[in-house]
């Protein structure tokens, strides 16, 4: 009988009705405030005295149409460099992480190496590494095609990003509860088997969202290779900028980057949110 008092015809309790009403209200408030801000930008920015000049040199439709297909072509180079660097980074990063956590005394040099590696490559700006390796190693006198800036530039990215990725893997290894190790050891597995079959699969799964963020950063940093020759999207935009005395090609490049990185970022956030929910 008491239930009848609080249940409406729609079958909702009064708490549910109240929550639904609150949700509707906040939705309306959010939508209208967003609309007002957008409207203000669309209406007010063109009223700024410099807007026409800015529009002409940053948002020039004719220039965008002219440069966009070539920018897309150039972006394929970014994709290519990304495609071969990312797996190498994953493998090297994992090896460095394992080297840093090696406990056997014979592997002590490996630990030292791992620590030095991460310290050095996390401590130096990527662009410097790209320059030093991209021009430096081929400068030693390697024959073509082994002196290609694609090879050595990619290596610079691989080394730098492996250092970061290794640290993330290590935090992932630490995040696996020690009772998992104990359980695996109690079954008679060796240290190596415990790491390979029990710890690593969980560690890697735990750090997937963080590593996704590294991939997104890598995707952007591929453009740093433009400094040592490859005509990827950032350089191609720069060529257009100089040729046309217009910054719109940079805006075009930004649009292409965003088209890739926004979905990737959303996906990484989604993975992270799901993982948080699972842990709860």
């Amino acid at each position, binding site marked *: 009988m008491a239930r009848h008092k609080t249940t409406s015809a729609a079958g909702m309790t009064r708490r549910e009705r109240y929550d639904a009403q609150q949700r509707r209200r906040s939705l309306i408030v959010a939508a209208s405030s967003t609309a007002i801000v957008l409207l203000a930008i669309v209406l007010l920015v063109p009223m700024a005295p410099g807007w026409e000049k800015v529009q002409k040199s940053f948002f020039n439709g004719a220039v965008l149409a002219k440069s966009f297909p070539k920018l897309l072509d150039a972006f394929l180079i970014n994709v290519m460099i990304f495609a071969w660097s990312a797996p190498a980074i994953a493998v090297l990063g994992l090896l460095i992480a394992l080297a840093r956590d090696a406990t056997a005394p014979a592997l002590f040099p490996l630990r030292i190496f791992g620590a030095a590696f991460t310290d050095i490559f996390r401590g130096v700006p990527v662009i410097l590494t790209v320059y030093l390796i991209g021009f430096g190693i081929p400068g030693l006198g390697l024959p073509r095609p082994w002196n290609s800036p694609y090879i050595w530039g990619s290596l610079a990215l691989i080394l730098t990003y492996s250092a970061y990725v290794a640290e993330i893997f290590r935090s992932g290894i630490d995040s696996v509860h020690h*009772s*998992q190790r*104990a*359980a*695996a*050891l*109690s*079954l*008679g*597995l*060796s240290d190596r*088997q415990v790491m390979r*079959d*029990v710890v690593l*699969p*969980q560690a890697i*799964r735990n750090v997937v969202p963080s590593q996704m963020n590294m991939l997104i950063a890598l995707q952007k940093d591929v453009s740093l290779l433009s400094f040592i020759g490859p005509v990827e999207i950032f350089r191609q935009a720069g060529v257009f900028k100089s040729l046309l005395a217009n910054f719109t090609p940079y805006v075009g490049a930004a649009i292409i980057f965003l088209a890739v990185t926004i979905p990737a970022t959303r996906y990484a956030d989604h993975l992270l949110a799901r993982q948080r929910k699972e842990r709860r």
Partner: protein
Amino acid sequence: MAKLELRGVVKRFGDVTVCNGVDLDIEAGQMVCLIGASGGGKSTLLRCINLLEPIEDGEIRLDGEDISVPGLDPQGVRARIGMVFQNYNLFPHMTALENVMLAPRRVHRTPRDQLRPAVETLFRRFGLAERMHNYPDQLSGGQQQRVAIVRALAMRPEVMLFDEITSALDPQLVGEVLDVLLQLKQEGMTMVLATHEMGFAREAADKVCFLKAGRIVEQGPPEQLFGTPEHPETQAFLARALK
């Protein structure tokens, strides 16, 4: 000669002495229950027997062979002594079946196909046939703990150690796990339990040991230890525990 013999076992963590000279004989086919308040050294003692913790002093002998010699490769011993933990510790990234087959595949190098029939039999015997392909997070606590037991049994151990395996379970799930222990006892498994289940210890154990401050204060058959405890500390503990 007893199956498992502990002689003056001492275990310290830094300045804290957790096991302080434990002497204990466990005969083949016996179920021995370790009771006592938390922090008395029950769990640590089990971890020492499984060589998860090295001991500072004393000896642990399995079939008369000293397995606590420093430098001994622990893998062979652990393959002969199974252990089950309070929090199940199933591997969350594997199905129940994969959890169970991992150690035999890696340690005994037995291929999956060859393992499969025996492992399926184990699952059926403990009422888990329907659950073989589930991941741990799809199982109840009781089911997880039974899978953990099956996982240890799949290595065909000679001795099983149980570390408060019902403490994390909802009360209504405790029974199904204790039933498994009774089943194992009937099959003649040598078992050592650290437990808070006084009723179970009293009914099922062949020998009960009361531990306090890293020592066995008193040990004997359950009817003697529960019925006519001699030591005042045992009496005090039981008075509290059986209230």
